[in-house]
């Protein structure tokens, strides 16, 4: 993982990643369209808030929250856990490991090259939502957007690192995706995917604040949706930074120890 090699290889990795994405465009598009849960949740919570604010959030607040959730989810979700699981169990990781650059770089680049397509698919959906609830007032201040983008990047790093760690569990067990599904379920609740954390009981909120799930989605959503005052941004970003480090250490341990157990099956 020598940085110079990564830097010189990056343009080619991007070009190949983009070519691959073009080859799989239909699959990528379908994958993007399956992440529409925030729209479903918006419909439900909008009905709940019809008679008055829920947990201090009006219909406009909820529309803004779930619109931003839809966007942040698209920017931060990745599929490296499934790819690693498959590569480890079938042995197709072997040719990747023979190259003088960690295959994890290629997985990271695959996420980045898909971003323009993801954003292109999102734009019309967001435009429709704005037409439906013009009073939601999405953020437009450049500084506000920049901080939200930084928080989204940190969120993606935590998501990616945990997915690498869960993917690497396939070095030990054929059932590791089951564990990841459990983790994903917890994320939908404590990451703010199904509901804003602020509508949860205070005791649950207190715990959820320090779980990794909030740093994986809710923090950038809270910042972008204006639920977190600017004074609280540095603290939230620092919390995310801590989880980037923590998840990074866990991923590295799982990956390097897993490699020592690798069976290189299938050939």
């Amino acid at each position, binding site marked *: 993982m020598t940085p110079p090699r990564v830097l010189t290889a990056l343009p080619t990795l991007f070009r*190949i990643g983009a070519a691959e994405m073009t080859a799989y465009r239909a699959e990528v598009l379908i994958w993007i369209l399956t992440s529409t849960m925030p729209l479903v949740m918006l419909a439900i919570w909008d009905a709940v808030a019809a008679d008055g604010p829920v947990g201090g959030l009006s219909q406009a607040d909820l529309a803004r929250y779930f619109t931003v959730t839809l966007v942040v989810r698209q920017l931060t979700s990745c599929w490296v856990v499934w790819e690693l699981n498959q590569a480890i169990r079938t042995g*197709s990781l072997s*040719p990747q490991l*023979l*190259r*003088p650059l960690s295959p994890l770089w290629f997985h990271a680049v695959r996420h980045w090259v898909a971003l323009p397509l993801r954003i292109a698919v999102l734009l019309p959906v967001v435009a429709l939502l704005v037409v439906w609830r013009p009073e939601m007032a999405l953020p437009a201040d450049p500084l506000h957007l920049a901080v939200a983008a930084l928080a989204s990047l940190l969120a993606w790093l935590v998501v990616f690192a945990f997915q690498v760690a869960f993917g690497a569990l396939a070095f030990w067990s054929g059932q590791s995706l089951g564990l990841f599904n459990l983790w994903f379920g917890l994320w939908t609740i404590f990451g703010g995917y199904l509901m804003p954390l602020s509508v949860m009981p205070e005791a649950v909120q207190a715990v959820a604040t320090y779980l990794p799930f909030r740093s994986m989605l809710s923090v950038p959503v809270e910042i972008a949706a204006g639920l977190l005052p600017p004074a609280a941004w540095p603290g939230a970003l620092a919390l995310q930074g801590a989880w980037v480090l923590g998840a990074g250490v866990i991923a590295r341990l799982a990956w390097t120890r897993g490699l020592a157990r*690798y069976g290189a099956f*299938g*050939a």
Partner: protein
Amino acid sequence: MIRVSNLRKIYRVPQRAPGLGGAFRSLFSREVREVRAVDGVSFEIAPGERVGFLGPNGAGKTTTLKMLAGLLVPTAGELSVLGHVPARRDVKLLERITLVMGQKQQLLWDLPPRDTFELNRALYQIPDAEFRETVEELTRLLELAPLLGRPTRNLSLGERMKCELAAALLHRPAVLFLDEPTIGLDVVMQLQVRQFIAAWNARFQSTVLLTSHYMDDVQALCPRVIVIARGTLRYDGSLKGLVERHQPLRRVRLRPVSGFSGALPAPFRAPVGAGPGRRGVPGESDEESLEADHVADVPPGDVGALLHAALTLCPGADVRIEEPPLEEVFARLFRAEAGA
């Protein structure tokens, strides 16, 4: 160059009884069986050598190659390739070796091989001029020109294998680990790949360690062979020496003249075909004609006496003396191993 000392690899394989009951029991008590895939193997290979690595299925060949390439961590023993410990997967080692697996591919499935070449150029940091020169040379030697722009998924097995070889050699590795590089290829393609490996070795003096079930590969490419069975070393030396040791007999074929109906002295075996007089039957292939031969396997020193006796009984017969086929030598060797 390559040093292997007392190398061991023990797999712990979970055992499970079949059916629902077995699945349920495995939740509580997991039985694990130890498989000694490689059990104390030692050898050394000098720079530029071409060595055949042979053994029956499950002998531990591929496991050894994977340990040499740094994919598997040995359970015990010492390994050194170009002065590096492979399991550490140092970049300095990875950019000087390659492992071609006949049954695993590095080519990007939905993109043309040219894109994989480009990816490897970037990952191995190959200078532009050297990259162009190597691609041109590989394209010429392996006749790749019509293949490079087609998606890998649209190539035939043989075409894919040639592109795999090219992708694996772009960085001009000093050591080539080839695991059944001709598996599944037709004879024409096998010959082409074989000739290519020989030419590449001559051009770059790269070290080649090759496993193959095709004896023609071994005969054409490997002056030295290492044989392992059940994870242990059984032979390390010249191919000729192996043949002498395990099949020291010569095969004498005798085809009597038409009308001969007598018996030949032992150890001649009677023909497996319809008997004497079939020679030259119109429409019969050479192989079918061979079934009319009397055959004897004897030590080289006994050939003269046997022929004298046989030709006295059967004057004017056609006689052929053959070295035993390599497949037979190995079949005999491996059968002996299985019974050991």
